[in-house]
Each structure stands twice: as C-alpha cells, then as structure tokens.
C-alpha cells in the first residue's frame, strides 16, 4: 500500500461529525453565524468523505512467498 495523504482523515469521525452538524443545524436555537460555520464545514466533510470512499479502483493483491506482493 502506498502512503496516503489523507492518512489522518477518518471517515468514521467525519460521518459522526456530520450527524452532529445536522443536529446543530436542525436546532432552532443555533445562531445564523454558527449555522453558516457548521454548514460550510459539513459541505467540506461530505466532499472529503466521497473522495475518501471513491478514489481509485483496486485490483486484488496476492502475497507470495515471504510477504511479497503481486497484482492478481
């Protein structure tokens, strides 16, 4: 596996945060400023999630011998 630049990105955390953001937006007590803030954050997170989920289609790797790899 190649090192990924989004190594630190956790889709689980992102999706939890999106749930939170939806809750904040649906709460009528939230200020407009806060709403705009979390909304922009949410849109960025959604794009990041989709990017994280769908990058490049992978071929199965087969380990041979002592942990070497080859494409199937």
């Amino acid at each position, binding site marked *: 596996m190649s090192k990924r630049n989004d190594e630190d990105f956790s889709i*689980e955390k992102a999706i939890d945060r999106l749930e939170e*953001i939806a809750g904040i937006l649906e709460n009528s007590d939230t200020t407009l400023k806060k709403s705009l803030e979390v*909304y922009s954050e949410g*849109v960025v997170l959604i794009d990041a999630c989709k990017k*994280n*989920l*769908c990058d490049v289609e992978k071929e199965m*790797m087969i380990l041979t011998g002592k942990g070497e790899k080859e494409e*199937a």
Partner: protein
Amino acid sequence: MAVRNYTVSQINGYIKNLIVNDYLLSDIFIRGEVSNCKYHSSGHIYFTLKDENAAVAAVMFKGNVSTGLPFQLENGQLVVAHGNINVYERDGRYQLYVRDIKKDGIGNLYEEYERLKQKLYEQGLFEFDIKKPIPKYPKNVGIVTAGTGAAIQDIKNIAKRRNPFVQLILYPAKVQGEGAACDIANGIRTLDKMGLDTIIIGRGGGSIEDLWAFNEEEVAWAIYHAKTPIISGTGHEIDNTIADYAADLRAPTPSAACELAIPDVMSTIRSIEDMRNRITRSMDNRIADIKNRILSYERQFRLLNPQKKLMDKQQYIDELYDRITRLMQSQYDRRYHRLQVLSSKINGMSPTAKLINGFGYLEKKGTPVSSVKELKMGDNINITVHDGIINAKVGGIDVEEK
C-alpha cells in the same frame, strides 16, 4: 443322477476361493467399534468390529501391528480397519485380516473438536468482550483462503461489486490437509502485521475433515492474538468451526463474510448524499426563516416609522395652521370692521373736531390747563386750535367768583 458328497474342507475351500477372488473384498476399509480386543502373546491382535446390528471377526498379525497401528487398540474405539476378507477354514468362518487401522476420523474429530472448544472457551478465547468491532468503511481487507477455488472468486466478485475501491490482499493458504492450520495461522499473522482494516478467513463448505484446519488450536490463538478484526466464514451454515467462535464476527460462508467486511459503497454514498440534502435543507430553511422574519420586521417598522409620525404631525400642524389662520382672519375682519365703525363714530367726537367753532385748549409746558389758578402773569402757554398751535403769554388773569 448320482448324489455327490463334499468334505467340509472342500466346501470351505470353495467358499474361500469365492471370497479371495472377489475384487472388493481383497482391499477394503471397514468402519466399526472395537470389541473383544485381545493382544495375544504371539503379538497378533484378535478383535471384533461391530456396529449396532452386526459384527465381524478381525485379526491383525504382528508384522502389521508394528507398521499399521500407531496407537493402542482398545475396546469401544471407533476405527477404520483396512485389509482384506478371507476365510479361516479351520473354523469355517470369514474374518478381516487387518493391514492397518486408523481411528475413525469423524468420531475422533468430533471428540477433539468438543474438547478443544471447551478448553478454549474456558481460556476465554470466545469471550464476547474481546470481540473487536468491524470497521464500517474499510480500505484494505486481507483474506486468508485457498488461492484457487470458488471461495476466493466469490469474495473477489462480491468485493468488486460492493466496493471496487477496497484493496483486497490475499494470503493464499493451504486450507486442508497437513500443515493447513499452520499456514492459515501464518496468513493471519502476516496480514495482521500489515495494519489492514479487516481480515476474512475461510473456505468453502466441506466435511468436518475438510474444515478441520479451522478447528485447530493454532488458528484459534492466531485469531485471538490478532489486532485486526477478523471475520470467519467457513463451510456451510450448519458448520461452526472453532475459528468461527474465536473470530470477531462469524459469517455462514466466505461470501457472507465478504459482505460483512465490505459494505456497499453506493449505499454509503447515498447516505452521505442524504446527509448533504439534510444539512442543505436545514440551512435553506434557516435562511428562509430569517428572510421572512426580516420582511415581517420591515413591514412592522414601516408602520412604526417615526418619519411617518412626523409627517402625520406635520399634516396636523398644517391643518391647525389653516384653522388658526382662518380664525385669526375672521377675528381680524370682525375687529377691523368694528374699528371702522368706531373710528367714524369717534371722529365725530374728536376734541379737535370740536375746536372748529372757536374752541381751543390750553397747555402749559405740555400740561393741560384747567384752572386760572394754575397760571400767573407772563406764563407761556400753548393754545391748540383745529389747524395749529398758538404760542401766547398770559397778560392778565381774572378769577371768576362763584
């Protein structure tokens, strides 16, 4: 037709001949339970093989015991004896001449399986608390199964269909036969070191012997020690292997294990898109709500505008001004008229008007003179008549006596 007699030996020989020439009976495996087992001092073993309904005598000669019997034969054991059927002519009975004996695979394996399951259970390998959660959004999934065969093909196809972005890493393992358990355990350890999200272990269905590698202790411990969550899918749905119990999640088949390991990416994306709609809708609602509130405030403010009040007051002031002006005018007109009337009346009564006929009035230093006592000789006085003033000097005073 003459009746022919045979000797016993002839008959037994004939039967022996029949049996010896039978292809099936010359090389046969017979499964049964050992009874009447007798280790003879000669080194031969005599015993009976039986099942619920039948029994057959068996003998294993010394020469075969050393090569074909790796364990102590005891009554009650379930065994598979391999040899040929022949007739012992002396007794007139057929028996099994045993070349080698194995413990009956199934009976023994079940026993072993139950024993190991109990042992590992007591050692806590199957505890629910140690089960690791399966990542919901895996990126890299390891597989320990045979490199060829239906299982890996199914997994590949299902993974591709559900989420082609997941990297599959196969450790092709020997899944049955000698060394299979060791290979599977190695596979688990190797993949575990790679820091993958999930590992699938499994193989297609088969008999308990086929699945046996997944019932071995080494595999169970490899699963237990792995830091990566492991999903096991061995055999068909009715077979539970030790590996199934030890794994973090058990699937009925390798395909099912793959489905549990790799969620459908399209449904994940759909739920993320739903989330986008949800927050966008909330945001739109919020903005629309605020817009409406602003509009309604604007309307309210327009009604409450001080400018409006001011204009209203100005209008009122204008009205008052007009009213006052009108009133003043009429007052003025009325008074002016009256003044005219009075003026002409008063003109008629003016003292100067009365001076016309020789009348005049006296003033001394601007003060009217009303008595002779106010004057003395030589005083300067002014006499005003209707068309001017006469300056005069008192020449004499006569006091009129009353």
